[in-house]
Every structure is written in structure tokens, then in C-alpha cells.
């Protein structure tokens, strides 16, 4: 590419060239929405209007959309942290579910502790997710198992156990829902955009994004983690203790998932319902992929995913399409982000 072209690309919409690939993917996804509306709806114009404008038309929908993005942000941060260290954490769903469950039951048990109870419950939730993921990292360090598989299997097993606990010993007898008791009212995060569900957990999500960014790019441990992820042999050559970077990033990754689960409970659901986390892990993976594992890019990516979901929900309420339109569009995105060719658009071509 010559210089003039180069400059023009750089100027394009004022975004860095490296983000172009992701933009192309988002564009194709939105085109899919158009296509599906014309195919599936008798009133495509109405469908499209509610799909695109709906989520933004009032504070209720806007707030709910933002709220949907919160667990996505936490989870995508979790995916990215492991990925930066060269590890895969596919067990996010179970870690999120397990973290949420432990956070809920500890909050119920520590009802009288006040603010200390809130902190303790959330920390316990995070640690639960962290320990689950770290276990897979440890197995890899010890016996070179594949963490991609162990995290996934472990997560599925834990999900079943948690499901049993919620439906059995910990079920709230006062309701007909398959859910635990609700956490004490004083523990719940405040709503920040009535009448929507949006809670102050959003602030936590933003803070955590900044924290993860600072950790990766400003701390010595983050530097070591990234170098290990980029080239383990180089890290070892430089004297970085390689074993710990198989376990620590997995712990942090799982902890972020657990934290995401706890936030969903404390901000939105107040009780841990059976299978409430289904789908969150995979969506988070897609979000992280779009953001290419860069913490700061996760926020717009998560908002985009939440937007698609809210749009579909809106179109479903006000027009004649089903909610599955969201799943289809998200699948399209998922499918496209795995294409390295699209991801590379605008970046330097690989040598060789």
C-alpha cells in the first residue's frame, strides 16, 4: 500500500486501521439484520425501526440495554486476560454461574454483616470462579492437559451441581421459581436509571475494565503475562517463571467471570436462578474476539452485543419477529470474528 492510501486509511472515520476489520464485521452483522427483517417480517420497516431505534428510545430500554452489557464486560475481560497469557478459558459459563451462586448464598448467610458482608460475598464469588479456572491451569502446568477442554468440562460439571443445589437444598421455598433466597435488600446495588434495571454495577464494570487495562500494560506482572502469552520460550529465556503464568492468568480470568456473576446477582437478579447464565459465556467470547482481547475495546464490543439483544427484544414486542433474530445476528458475528482474513483487514499483511 502506498503512502497516500496509507494516510487515507488512517483517517477513515478517525479510527485506527487495526479496528477496521472489526468495523467491517459489525457492518455485515447489521446488514444481516436488514436482510432478516425483510425475509421474516410482514412489516419490515416497523421491525427495523424498533430494532435500531427501540433500544435508545427511552431511559427504560436504554438502561436495560446497558445493564445487559455488564456481565458481558466482566466475562469478556476474563476471556481476554487468559488469552493474553496464551491460555484458553472456555469454562466461563460455569465459573460465572458458580461465582454467582456462592456470592448469593454467602450474602444470604451474612445478612447481618452490612457492607462487610457485601464485600465478602462478592470476593467469595470471584474466588470461586478463580479457583475453578486456576485448577485447569494447574493441571496444565502439572500434566500438560489441555486447558481448553478441562475448563469446558469442569464448567459443565459445576453447572449441573449448582443447578442441583439451587433446585434442592438452597431453593427458596417462598417462591415458585427455581431460585435461591434473595439477598438482603440492603446488599443490593442501587438503581441508577429508573425505571430501568440498570444498577451501579455498571460503574464497577467500567472501573474493572480500566483496572485490567492498567494491570496488563502498566504492571510488571502484566508485562510478564503478556510476554509469556506472545512467546513462552522468549519469556523463559528472559527468566520469567513460566509455571506461574499458566495458573495466575487463569485464576484472574475465572475471578472476573465469578465477579461478573456476582454483579449480575447484586445488581439485577438478587437471587440465583437456575440456568440464568446460559449463553453468557459464549457471548462473552464473541465480545472478546471482536475487541481482539484489548480491555478498552471490550466496552464498545459489549455494548454492540447488548444493543443487538435489546433491539431484537424490542422488535419482538412491537412487531412480528421472534427473539431468535438476535441469536442469528449474534451467530453471524461469532462466525465472522473467527475469520482471520476479516480480522486482518487494514493491518499489515503477514510476511512469508
Amino acid at each position, binding site marked *: 500500500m502506498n503512502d497516500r492510501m496509507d494516510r487515507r486509511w488512517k483517517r477513515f472515520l478517525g479510527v485506527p486501521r487495526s479496528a477496521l476489520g472489526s468495523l467491517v464485521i459489525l457492518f455485515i452483522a447489521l446488514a444481516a439484520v436488514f436482510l432478516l427483517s425483510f425475509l421474516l417480517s410482514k412489516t419490515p420497516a416497523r421491525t427495523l425501526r424498533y430494532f435500531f431505534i427501540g433500544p435508545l428510545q427511552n431511559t427504560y430500554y436504554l438502561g436495560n440495554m446497558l445493564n445487559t452489557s455488564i456481565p458481558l464486560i466482566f466475562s469478556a475481560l476474563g476471556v481476554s486476560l487468559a488469552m493474553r497469557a496464551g491460555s484458553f478459558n472456555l469454562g466461563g459459563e460455569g465459573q460465572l454461574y458458580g461465582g454467582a451462586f456462592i456470592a448469593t448464598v454467602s450474602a444470604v448467610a451474612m445478612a447481618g454483616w452490612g457492607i462487610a458482608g457485601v464485600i465478602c460475598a462478592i470476593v467469595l464469588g470471584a474466588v470461586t470462579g478463580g479457583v475453578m479456572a486456576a485448577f485447569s491451569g494447574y493441571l496444565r502446568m502439572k500434566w500438560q492437559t489441555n486447558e481448553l477442554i478441562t475448563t469446558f468440562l469442569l464448567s459443565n460439571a459445576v453447572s449441573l451441581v449448582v443447578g442441583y443445589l439451587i433446585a434442592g437444598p438452597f431453593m427458596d421455598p417462598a417462591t415458585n421459581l427455581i431460585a435461591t433466597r434473595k439477598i438482603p435488600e440492603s446488599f443490593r446495588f442501587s438503581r441508577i436509571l429508573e425505571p430501568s434495571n440498570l444498577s451501579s454495577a455498571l460503574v464497577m464494570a467500567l472501573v474493572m475494565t480500566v483496572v485490567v487495562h492498567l494491570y496488563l500494560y*502498566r504492571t*510488571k506482572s*502484566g*508485562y510478564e503475562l503478556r*510476554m509469556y502469552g506472545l512467546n513462552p520460550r522468549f519469556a*523463559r529465556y528472559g*527468566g520469567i517463571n513460566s509455571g506461574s503464568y499458566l495458573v495466575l492468568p487463569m485464576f484472574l480470568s475465572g475471578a472476573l467471570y465469578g465477579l461478573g456473576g456476582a454483579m449480575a446477582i447484586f445488581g439485577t437478579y438478587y437471587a440465583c436462578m437456575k440456568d440464568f447464565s446460559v449463553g453468557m459465556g459464549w457471548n462473552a467470547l464473541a465480545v472478546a474476539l471482536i475487541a481482539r482481547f484489548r480491555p478498552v475495546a471490550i466496552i464498545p464490543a459489549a455494548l454492540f452485543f447488548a444493543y443487538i439483544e435489546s433491539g431484537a427484544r424490542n422488535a419482538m414486542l412491537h412487531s412480528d419477529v421472534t427473539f431468535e433474530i438476535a441469536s442469528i445476528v449474534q451467530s453471524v458475528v461469532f462466525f465472522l470474528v473467527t475469520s482471520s482474513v476479516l480480522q486482518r483487514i487494514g493491518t499489515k499483511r503477514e510476511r512469508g
Partner: protein
Amino acid sequence: MSDTAVTMHDIVKTYRETGRCANDHVDLTVGRGEILCLAGENGAGKTTLMKVLYGMEKPESGTITVMGKRVKIDSPLDANRLGIGMVHQHFMLVDEYTVAQNVILGREPMHNRFTIDADAAKRLVDEVIHAHGFSIDPSARVGSLTVGQKQQVEIVKMLYRDVDILILDEPTAVLTEQETASLFGTLRTLRDTGKSLILITHKLHEIKAISDRVAIMRQGRMVGHYETASVDERELAGLMMGKSFSPAIGKTPYGRKQETVLRFAQVSVVRRNQGRPMLKDVSFVARTGEILGFAGVGGNGLGELESVLAGTLPISGGTITHRGQDISKSDAHRLRERGLAYVPSDRLKVGSALEASVSENLIIAARKRFSRHGMMRGKHIMQHARTLIDTYSVQGTADMPIGTLSGGNIQKVILAREIAQYRDYIVFSEPTWGLDIASSKFVHTQMIALRDAGASVLLLSSNLDEILSLSDRVLIFSRGSIVAELEGERLHTVTKEEMGAYMLGMHVREAAHE
């Protein structure tokens, strides 16, 4: 019909990644029914030339004639069709399959379009095995065979494809003496049935033992074709190594007070399932203010020595001490803390993280110095990077990914980092491999400057010119042991032919007396 099987004319092949010309207008002829050894040092371009013939590499120019016909070979399949087969150094076999299944893979006898005729397969493979006097059972599982037998399977695989020209890439590298003898027997039988064989090798006694003719390559060029009977081993070594001496770079003779920095005592490395130790009773001392050169042909222990020095290969016997303290069991982490500085031979896979920035690459071993309370000190890091980029005139900026730099500049970054890191000793492994003359000279100047400043410099190199022009003392490795130590007057008068003879395992006894 002529009696040449293959003629390669004016082959040029440059590797784009490194810009190195691996084959520089090379000619090669192979006669029918002869065994030709293609000989040369590591990196002389032998394997590249054979990959061109086998359709694995595309040359920029040149022509190939097979059995009198001009041909174009774009893939190994093309090569097979023309009757050319190759046995690679690393076997390409499916362990879970039987010998027969491996042999027919890709060219199966069929009942019809969908089912393989297993009986015919076994019969056909059996015929090939018996016709050439091999000793393998076609129904044995390949995973249960010895290395020598696996190699036979590879050869049978090629014969099953009716090849008349067989290329073998360093076939004896993995074999025991007995297996080698038996392989040579097989090769002679094949030759007598009219096959043409090309052996890539750098072992002198093997060239003498097996070949009819020998073609010698050096630094990408063809030195010439010789009747094996007309040259002796010494001449062969000379042809492979080259005769010219490069003028020594001006340096002051060392006269400083010399202290021992590093001491190896009877260090051995034995790997499981491998009879021959990779390093055997290696003892030496490295002192301040000298460049200690380690010479050897690939596969003779220098690679293992490098890993031991780097702390990534545990030793199985002996002791290593640094300034009197035992570091035999120290890993890379501990050695780095003690001030290990080390320029690795593999700059891209070990020496750098290509996607990380130059500044990040520069602090890998010194990261403690650039952090406070666990936080990286961004300003210091950038300043450090800019200073080093300036000092070493690296063409690039601190925040560029190091992978976007040229090979020579990557090496400068690594040098800058390790020189900034060194305390009393520094290890260089193949420091100028693949670099152009200007970059090589820069590296050499840096090494001499380090030595003059009192560092103990360890130079591991397969480049004899480099070893001879820089070292104050040279240790020569062959088969994992030190076979000679050259110093002072002896080092000044030694010829490359003599060096080659030591490195290739001749005169071991003489060396012991010296």
C-alpha cells in the same frame, strides 16, 4: 538416452524472510546407477537444492533435466511421477499403521472406487521388500519398529512408487553404526539395480565409504564434482570449509589479570532413550578478558551446550560453577538473576517476542530494574529504549513491534539488551548467522569491545572464520566431547583443514596428546 539421471543447471533460490541466497547459480549432475554424496557445512544449501529437485521449494531461476527431458517440478507428487523420491531426516510415517499401510498411503491398490485391496497391498509391499533384501515385516506396526527399520520403511515407500532417483537427507544422522552399515549395504544393492542415489551428508568417512562421486557445496555455491577415489578426507574437509582465511579483526592481545568466571567440570547430558550422551565429560573454564570460542559441526553438542548455559537443559552429571558458586541446578530464572547475558542462536523464536514492541523486548531480563512496587516505569523504559536504539543505530522506533524490523536490526536489539544486561560473562550463539557483512562486522566489534572491557565472552559458532578471527582460545567439539583445545601460537598456525578434521571426528587421539 544419456547416462545422466538428473541435471540441475543454474539454480537460484533466495529465502525471502532472511534475504539469504541459499542456492547461488548452482549446477548439479547425477549419473545413472551411481551414489552421489552432496556434501557441505551446515547452511551450505544442500537441503535447499534437494528440496528444489523434490518440488518442495520453487527456485527463482534455473532448469532441471530428468532422464534427458526438461521438466518442471512443482510438488513432491510431480517429483514422484518423474521417478524422484526423497527420504527426509524426520520420518513422515503414521505410527499406528502397519508397514504395508504406510507404504501404500497415497497410492493404494483398490478393489473398486471405494475399498482398498488389502491383500494386494500386502503382496505388493512384500514384493518390494524381498526384491531389495530388506528385513521388515509388512504387517508390523510402524510404531513398534526401530529407527533403522523406520528408515527402511521410508525407502520401501519410495521404491513402491517406482522411483529411479532417491534422495536421502542425512540418512545416518539418527542411526547407530550397525544400522549405518546395513543401510549402506542396501544402498549399494539399489545402485547395482540401476537406481541413482543422492545422499546429503557432511561426514567425511561416509562420503569415502559409500559414494562414487561427491558434489561439494559451500555458502550456497557449488564448489565442484569430484570422483570420490581421487580426493582424500583432508582435501574434502578443505573443500567443504574453504581455504581462505579472513583477516583477523584488529584486537589487542589479552594481558589483563585473568579470573575464572565460569567452570564446567565433567558436565554430561544424557537424554532418555538415547544411548549416546549429548554432552560427555565437558570440562573447561571461561576467564575474564578473553573470547572463548566453541567450534563444532551441527549435532555435535554445541546446541546442547547453549541450552545448558541458558539454563533450559538440566545436566545429568558434573558441576558448573560461576564465581565459585555451584549453578549446576540453576534454571533460566536464577541464572538471569545472577546476571546471565546471552544472545541465542534462534533470534526469532527464543530471542524476541515478535509482536511485542522494541522497548518491551529490551527489558525482558531487566524488568525488575524498570519497575517499582510492581508498576512498570514507562518513562524509564522508553528512555532506555531510545538510548539503546541510538547507541546501536537500530533502524526502528521504540514502540514498533520488533517483528517489523529486519533480521540485522532484530539482532542489534538483542545485542543491545544483552550487553546492557551483562555483569561478567556473556554467551553468543551463532551471533552472525544470516546477517550481512556490515551487521556481522558490527557484532564482532561489539564482542571485542566487551572482551577488552574485561568480560568473559563465550562464542558458540559453526562459522570457522568467525571462531578463528575472534577467539583467544578455541575448544573443538565432536560427538558431544571436547576433542581439542587451541591456544596461543597453535591457534595462529592452525589451518581450516585441520580444524575441519578435528570437527569431523578425525585425529581425536592426536588431539589428546597435544
